[in-house]
């Protein structure tokens, strides 16, 4: 039996622990392509979160009715329906955003975050947990896109959400709104997040070793440390 996690944890794990962009490295295509500005990132993340939450909900509701052999096909149809709804609504109501995001709204269908959560979580858990998990992942995706979009927009066009934040004397780095800039920012962010995790792990490890020393435990092997989870 797997450990029962709290409902809150179901939500918060998506924010950082299994952040879809920086930890699962899923959905990198829209991450790299649309983050030329913060508003694009926000719109993309909201659209994805909408699809993610509703498809997770439906999939977890009908998970016991769908035969195992055709589950992926069924998931894709459900996901594609929600994506089409989002696409139509955006075209009708938010034409400018829909234009800016271009083909990346229809492409949410094949965004691995959604199918990934459907297959890994919603198909095995109840509706409440699935929705929380989807929301957490959606918010995690949102955070990642806003950070990426923020860095790229500030350096690439001197603005944040359209408001100028850097003085005119600052020559905008065009590379940041080109694809190359997306890769550089993404790589650096991932590198720094890994560095942070590594440092934290080392600190925990050292603290544990110190604790073992205090209680007078002699043998501290890698296996012992592994068991303690650090």
């Amino acid at each position, binding site marked *: 039996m797997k450990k029962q996690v709290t409902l809150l944890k179901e939500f918060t794990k998506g924010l950082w622990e299994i952040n879809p962009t920086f930890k699962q490295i899923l959905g990198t295509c829209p991450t790299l392509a649309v983050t030329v500005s913060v508003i694009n990132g926000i719109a993309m993340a909201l659209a994805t979160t909408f699809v993610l939450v509703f498809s997770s909900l439906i999939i977890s509701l009908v998970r016991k009715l769908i035969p195992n052999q055709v589950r992926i096909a069924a998931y894709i149809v459900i996901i594609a329906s929600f994506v089409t709804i989002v696409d139509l609504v955006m075209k009708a109501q938010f034409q400018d955003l829909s234009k800016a995001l271009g083909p990346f709204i229809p492409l949410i269908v094949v965004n691995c975050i959604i199918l990934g959560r459907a297959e890994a979580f919603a198909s095995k858990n109840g509706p409440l947990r699935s929705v929380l998990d989807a929301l957490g992942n959606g918010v995690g995706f949102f955070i990642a896109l806003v950070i990426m979009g923020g860095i790229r927009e500030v350096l690439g066009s001197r603005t944040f959400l359209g408001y100028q934040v850097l003085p005119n004397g600052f*020559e905008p*780095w*065009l*590379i*940041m709104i*080109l694809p*190359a*800039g997306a890769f*550089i920012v993404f790589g650096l962010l991932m*590198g720094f997040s890994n560095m942070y995790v590594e440092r934290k792990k080392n600190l925990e490890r*050292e603290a544990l*070793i*110190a604790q073992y*020393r205090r209680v007078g435990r002699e043998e*501290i092997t*890698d296996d012992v440390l592994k068991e303690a989870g650090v």
Partner: protein
Amino acid sequence: MTDTQTLIEPKQKVYFDLTTSPHLHSKWSTSKVMWFVVAALIPSIIAAITFFGWMQIFIIITAVVFAVGTEAAIQSIRKKKVTWFDGSAALTGLLLALTLPPNFSLSATAIGSVVAIGLGKQIFGGLGYNIFNPALVGRAFLQAAFPVQITTWVKPNFAVDSVTSATPLAAFKFDKIFTDTVPMAIGNVGGSLGETSAIAVLVGGILLIAVGIVNWRIPLSMIIGMFLFGGLFWFINPQNPSPVFHIFAGSFLFGAMFMATDWVTSPITNKGMWIFGLGISLVLVVIRIYGGLPEGVMYSILFMNGFVPLINRYTKPTIFGVVKEEKK
């Protein structure tokens, strides 16, 4: 704390100095080589100052200071031995500065240096681990970040009426005007600081070849490649520039002598060097004739840099002295 360390020390804290092959002994130490290359660039620096004014020295100083500073900063953050004095960072900064246009903004120069050392070199683990030529990485970043400033040229100091500020390659690309070879050889044309004077580049380059720092195969194969591929396109359509124009225009010679021959990012086998040099020339000719940009030395060298591990593997010499296993 000290107790803890002694406890885990045998398991964790054993460090070896790991370097990539080949492990050769040589009279040349890294820093000696680096400073020698810097010395070989002095003619180009003098040419740059002669043709574009003494102000250009500030670009060079900025680039070098920021390159060395970034190297020292990153190494101390990563708690590695600080090796700013070995000259490799200074050389990267100097090479970067010489590929920039005259009167280039100093703040942008500084950004270029930081990127060259940070993204081009230290992120891979420092000297010897980088795939791409750091100075060119810095310049490629600047080219993408500030495309207008980096293609804004100035007239050289001794310009006669017929000399414009446009580089010979831009003049060819956009207006189909060919510049004479003589001003291009001397350096009295528009262009980047170090690239315009072919003679100054050749003096430094030949010096490096003579003392054995630069392997002659790479520059020679690039020149031969230029005659082959550039000549081919010229033969097909005389509207295309001749191989001689290709060689003297832009930063071809500068790239051949100082950029492509970087020890870290060029092949280690003789055969590999030929493939590398010919490849650069082929890519370059295609970029110059069909590309959107007038010049392509930087991109063609970076492109071929990416192939170096593959070239090295493909041209690995046969190991002699191993007896084939007999079939039983």
